[in-house]
């Protein structure tokens, strides 16, 4: 039995293509049913997020399975396979396992270490479980992926630092101003990054926002959006001292806050520290403002540097994560191979033969006047019984091996006759959950 992965992600396809092949989350029953109805596809899970669309499946026929899933992806979304094909990747066996472990651990994400992806895969798996498109292998496979992701999260520091400029600004503000709950943010001008940062500050508990803009109407609109206060641009310096955090991004051709202004404002605040963030190009705040005592000026470049440093730290941690994944792949692969038919038949025969020999031994050793050829006859008799008993299950297993449901039989057999340590594995799995 083989695990295959077919899909596309932010690495291989632009958002225009990704949105064309995305599956709508509240209508998963139909595509999952169609997927498992494909020839040779036994189990299937569809993961669809804004950054990736991937199909996990099990099959006996790797090449055929991959081709059929590609075709399914194109047909389902009414796209030409030729246009989709260049963006698709496909993995099987060990590479497929590695890929899914990496995705779940957020190593393949656009922002490495971001935590949403695990939840998204869990939701996708939830649909597959609900509509019964996943079976014994994918169930176990995805649970394993979740536990690997959890291990990566707890054993490495992959998700512990700020990797967006807005988030870095909030972290930095806390380092200067401490608790943000009694702090006020002043937004000068407008701009996507500025507004995003303001939102981050409010989410982190900042008390209020003042907004100013050369166009007062725009300031009023933004202030309303944030539940803040609109300030006329001409009155900026009458209110600036009330702000602990100043976010500036106007289109002004020259600086609007100079070191003199900053000095005066800080004095007016009785030297309480102020955190200036200049997002504008050309700059809004004179770099000399940073020389003013208790004023701390950071530009977008500074924040970007923090983000870069954090990202570098993350990539170091990512190496540790790959190491963890390597260990886990080996384990899972071993379990997968126990589901194969031939080793199961061999193990089953071995178990029967063991019992037969033990019982034969008991009978013969306690038999005082044993007829000369009795031992041979008993041997033949028990052998014939064993072969007859095993004939039907073996034949069913072998035929099932060409069809789809073999792993169910194999798993049942292994549990019923206590072959190898499969049960122990199951207990381990429950513990992990």
């Amino acid at each position, binding site marked *: 039995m083989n695990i295959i992965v077919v899909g596309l992600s932010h690495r291989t396809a632009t958002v225009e293509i990704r949105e064309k092949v995305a599956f709508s989350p509240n209508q998963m029953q139909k595509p999952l049913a169609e997927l498992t109805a494909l020839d040779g596809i036994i189990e299937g899970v569809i993961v669809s997020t804004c950054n990736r669309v991937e199909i996990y499946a099990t099959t006996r026929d790797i090449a055929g399975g991959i081709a059929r899933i590609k075709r399914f992806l194109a047909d389902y979304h009414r796209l030409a396979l030729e246009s989709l094909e260049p963006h698709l990747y496909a993995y099987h066996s060990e590479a497929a396992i590695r890929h899914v472990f990496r995705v779940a651990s957020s190593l393949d994400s656009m922002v490495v270490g971001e935590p949403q992806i695990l939840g998204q895969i869990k939701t996708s798996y939830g649909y597959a479980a609900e509509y019964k498109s996943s079976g014994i292998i994918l169930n176990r496979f995805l649970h394993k992926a979740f536990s690997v992701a959890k291990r990566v999260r707890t054993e490495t520091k992959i998700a512990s630092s700020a990797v967006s400029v807005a988030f870095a600004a909030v972290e*930095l503000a*806390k*380092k*200067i*101003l*401490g*608790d943000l709950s009694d702090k006020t943010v002043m937004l000068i001008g407008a701009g996507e990054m500025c507004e995003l940062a303001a939102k981050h500050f409010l989410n982190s508990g900042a008390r209020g926002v003042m907004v100013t803009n050369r166009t007062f109407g725009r300031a009023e609109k933004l202030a309303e959006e944030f539940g803040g206060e609109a300030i006329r641009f001409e009155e900026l310096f009458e209110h600036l001292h009330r702000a602990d955090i100043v976010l500036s991004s106007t289109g002004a051709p020259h600086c609007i806050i100079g070191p003199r202004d900053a000095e005066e404002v800080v004095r007016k*605040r*009785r*030297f*309480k*520290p102020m955190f200036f963030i200049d997002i504008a190009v050309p700059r809004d705040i004179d770099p000399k403002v*940073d020389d003013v*005592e*208790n004023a*701390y000026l*950071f530009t977008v470049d*500074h924040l970007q*540097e*923090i983000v870069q*440093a954090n990202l570098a730290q993350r990539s170091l941690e990512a190496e540790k994560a790959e190491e963890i994944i390597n260990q886990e792949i080996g384990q899972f692969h071993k379990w997968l191979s126990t589901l194969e038919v031939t080793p199961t038949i061999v193990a089953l025969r071995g178990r029967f033969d063991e019992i037969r020999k033990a019982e034969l031994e008991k009978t013969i050793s306690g038999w005082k006047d044993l007829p000369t050829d009795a031992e041979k006859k008993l041997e033949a008799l028990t052998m014939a019984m064993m072969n007859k008993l095993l004939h039907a299950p073996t034949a069913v297993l072998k035929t099932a091996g060409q069809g789809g449901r073999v792993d169910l039989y194999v798993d049942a057999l292994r549990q019923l006759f206590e072959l190898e340590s499969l049960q122990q594995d199951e207990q381990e799995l429950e513990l992990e959950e």
Partner: protein
Amino acid sequence: MSHIFFYLTFALYGCATAAYLVFLLRSSSQVGVWADRLVMAGFATHLLSTIHRFSSSGHLPITNMHESLSFFALSIVGAFILFERKYKVTILGAFVIPIALLLVISSSAFPSAIRELNPALKSNWLWVHTIMAFVSYAMFTIAFGAAVIYLIQQHFLKKKRLGALFQKLPSLNTLDDINYRCLTIGFPLLTVAIITGAIWAEKAWGTYWSWDPKETWSLITWFIFAALLHSRLTTGWRGKRASLLTIAGFLVMLFTFIGVNLWLPGLHAYK
């Protein structure tokens, strides 16, 4: 007995100092937890050692250099434990506990034999005067630690060097809060210590103020912290200036305590 506790204290403070320094330089929060535990254990043995000495001598163990240095260290560690609890600033230990360790080490360099109490010290004023002084010293030591970290953090912020150490040290705001809190506790206590000292001096020596070197230097210390408190309250001085003045005040205080005793002859020089 008190010897055993003293050496145990010595060892525990040594280990705690090492642990705080490792915590400062390496990223492991577990080390910080252990450093806190070591310092608590050290404080406990130190307290036992002091109590034991107190019960066997019958007077407060602050009558010679050995005892005073040890008592100073005890006050610092006690104050640190309280501040660490309140402000969650484990890292402060890396700046304050080494001072306590140095004090304990230098205390052991002085003769530790219990001597008959100097008649001039046989008074209940000894308790009030010295305990107030030691607690205020401990507060100023904590303030000193916070001020040093403040200057480091501010340096990192101005130079935009925001590495692992910057991330680990507390926020400017927390450090300034600690500074202010220490000042508002330490300064009134120092004031009370000086006033009770004067009253006691009048009873023992017949004069309130005799410009003994200890008295003079205490007054200088008092003026520095008075200036700091005053400018904090009136013009809102804080941050860098407050930190620099705190450090100056601490150094003068240290000289008042150690230097005057050792090098300047006077009524307070109890070796």
